[in-house]
């Protein structure tokens, strides 16, 4: 019996690793390309001013806001949902924090704490709102979160009065974005901490499993007695908080909050990171570590383009290529079509049937 359980544990670990294999390979390939082009200095961290630096470390530091948002997005997508409002919540979080500090004593730790808490609270409210619309009002996730995607930046502008509030370099607030603890940049620490917190939350409690059940088969989950409404709201709440925190980090790094451009289009990058990381858009099993690797890939890709000598305009095109490849590979019809010449005749069903069969399959 013990041996069987051991083997079983191995089996699960193996399946998990297999899922992460492709993203890891892609990341490794990108890193290798960069090392080849710029030398080992790419990956080796150096220490400047008591802070870790170096190209790869910088990538991780700059990607921290995207990481936070992508992690929240992972949970939302697992429930068969989507959150398009995270960019706007990012902007609102930044705006609230900076605006609060604007005419106050910016060197006071207490003020900084209040600013952060206030911003997170508002972000949480917006997340809860989104979740309530989806779970209790039955509005489609795309539609429900579209509202804040459109209106959110207007609200952020409202908060800042159309200005760009600045926070002084001397304030402890900017440490959130630029500081370092034991030479490790604070954004990386926050990113790791949130990652750890979410992993703990979803894997030591039953939240992860129930999320995957609700996203994987909502009807079966209902019949098994799962209370899906509360879980759904919680998921969007988490996504909102992550987005708010990301905005605070971004604003701290810049020393200001830009309601118009802060976190612009970050939701699209986040969705991309989640999908690369192995979580399917249709919901079900999710992979927080996979998402993290996806974020690293996106960040590294941007730098690779530059290092390889392609102009920065290639940023968009290559993201498009990645989306295409991932989407097509996840499509069973595409895989069947590509492998058709290699399949032996007579094995399985003729591929011309899918539409009608699917239509009548109850």
């Amino acid at each position, binding site marked *: 019996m013990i041996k069987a359980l051991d083997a079983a544990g191995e089996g699960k670990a193996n399946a998990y690793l297999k899922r992460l294999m492709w993203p890891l390979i892609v990341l490794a390939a990108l890193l290798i390309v960069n090392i080849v082009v710029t030398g080992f200095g790419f990956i080796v961290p150096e220490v400047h001013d008591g802070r870790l630096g170096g190209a790869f470390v910088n990538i991780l530091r700059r990607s921290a806001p995207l990481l936070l948002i992508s992690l929240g997005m992972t949970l939302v997508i697992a429930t068969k949902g*989507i959150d398009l409002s995270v960019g706007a919540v990012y902007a609102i979080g930044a705006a609230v924090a900076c605006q609060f500090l604007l005419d106050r004593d910016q060197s006071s730790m207490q003020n900084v704490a209040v600013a952060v808490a206030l911003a997170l609270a508002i972000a949480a409210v917006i997340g809860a709102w989104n979740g309530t619309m989806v779970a209790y*009002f*039955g*509005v*489609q996730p*795309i*539609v*429900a979160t*579209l*509202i*804040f*995607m*459109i*209106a*959110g*930046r*207007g*609200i952020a*502008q*409202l908060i800042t009065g*159309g200005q760009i509030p600045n926070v002084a370099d001397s304030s402890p607030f900017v440490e959130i974005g630029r500081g370092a603890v034991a030479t490790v940049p604070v954004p990386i620490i926050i990113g790791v901490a949130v990652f750890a917190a979410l992993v703990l939350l979803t894997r030591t409690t039953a939240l992860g499993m129930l999320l995957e059940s609700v996203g994987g088969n909502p009807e079966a989950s209902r019949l098994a007695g799962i209370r899906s409404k509360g879980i759904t709201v919680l998921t969007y709440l988490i996504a909102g908080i992550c987005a708010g925190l990301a905005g605070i980090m971004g604003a701290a790094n810049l020393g200001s909050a830009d*309601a118009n451009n802060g976190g612009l289009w970050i939701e*699209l990058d986040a*969705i*991309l990171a989640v*999908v690369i990381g192995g979580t399917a*858009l249709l919901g079900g099993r999710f992979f927080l570590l996979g998402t993290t690797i996806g974020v690293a890939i996106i960040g590294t890709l941007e730098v690779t383009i530059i290092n390889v000598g392609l*102009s920065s*305009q*290639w*940023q*968009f*095109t*290559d*993201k*498009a*290529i990645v*989306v*295409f490849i991932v*989407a*097509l590979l996840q*499509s*069973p*019809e*595409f895989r069947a*079509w590509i492998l058709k010449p290699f399949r032996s005749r007579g094995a399985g069903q003729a591929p011309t049937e899918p*539409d*009608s069969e699917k*239509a*009548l399959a109850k």
Partner: protein
Amino acid sequence: MSSATLTERPTRSTLFDGLSRYIPIGATVALLVAMYLGGVANYRNFDNPQLIADLFIGNAGLLIVAVGMTFVILSGGIDLSVGSVMAFSTMACAWLTVEAGLPASVVVPSVLAFGLLSGAFTGAIIHYFDVQPFIATLAGLFLYRGLTLQISDHDMSIREIDFFSWGMQRVEFGSPRDGGFSLPYISFIAFGVVILAFVVLHYTRFGRSVYAVGGSEQSALLMGLPVARTKVGVYAISGFCAALGGVVAAFYTKSANPLAGVGLELDAIAAVVVGGTLLTGGAGFVLGTVAGVMVMGLLSTIIAFQGNLSSWWARIVVGVLLLAFILLQRVLARSGERRKG
């Protein structure tokens, strides 16, 4: 013959249910009228007819793109790439005429054809490989923006090409002093697109198939409707409209801006929803989209007249409108389900 004829009385008033389809667009039109009257009451010169005409000048591109988006949304899909395709089309027009020296009469049709074909390609991927429209058109958003930036990362002027000065030539309707107004040719292009779309959606088999597929793709398939052709077709139309929007932008600004149209897809989707079309598909009117575009345009105008409000209020109001229309649609849907029992 049979002696008994069964008279079917509908389970709820046919009049109501036939009319309930028109409630959302009715709300939009009511809103439009209310906004206009409010504006006239509060601001001087608001009743100048040129004001309404201006709605169709600055928003001509948006209107065309939104009409294309209406087709896609009616069929149950979504198209996030329209802003990028539009920018790419303007940039392609600019580059091909200015840098490559090709005649505009060749370039413009080619750009339009490219928009049509690229849309069809996207539609094919969505239908045959079962890729979700969100993801497939997201790829398009990145791809065409990237291609646009690769052609040029800064503004390119097309002033020197005579062809592109045609679009803004105006047609006068009465003299300005006597309450007349003028409209440039691009507005007529937009009107033409709207009329064509209306006819296609309501008077052709293809148009009715769009509604059917949006209502229930499975049923449409089992009824023997040409689902593949319909789905590929709506994305082709959307691509074409985005390209046409780009050409119109070339006429309007006489330059190509690589960052033009960023966020245009959001405006188009908002216009379609505020115009009464269900995001889930199967219900809506292209005239509703026109009303939606007008609402958004009038909103900006009112804010401009107000003077002391910043333009970001427009965003908030659009968000609120969106919320209101979405909840209205939910309420109508739920009451419909309840009546059926």
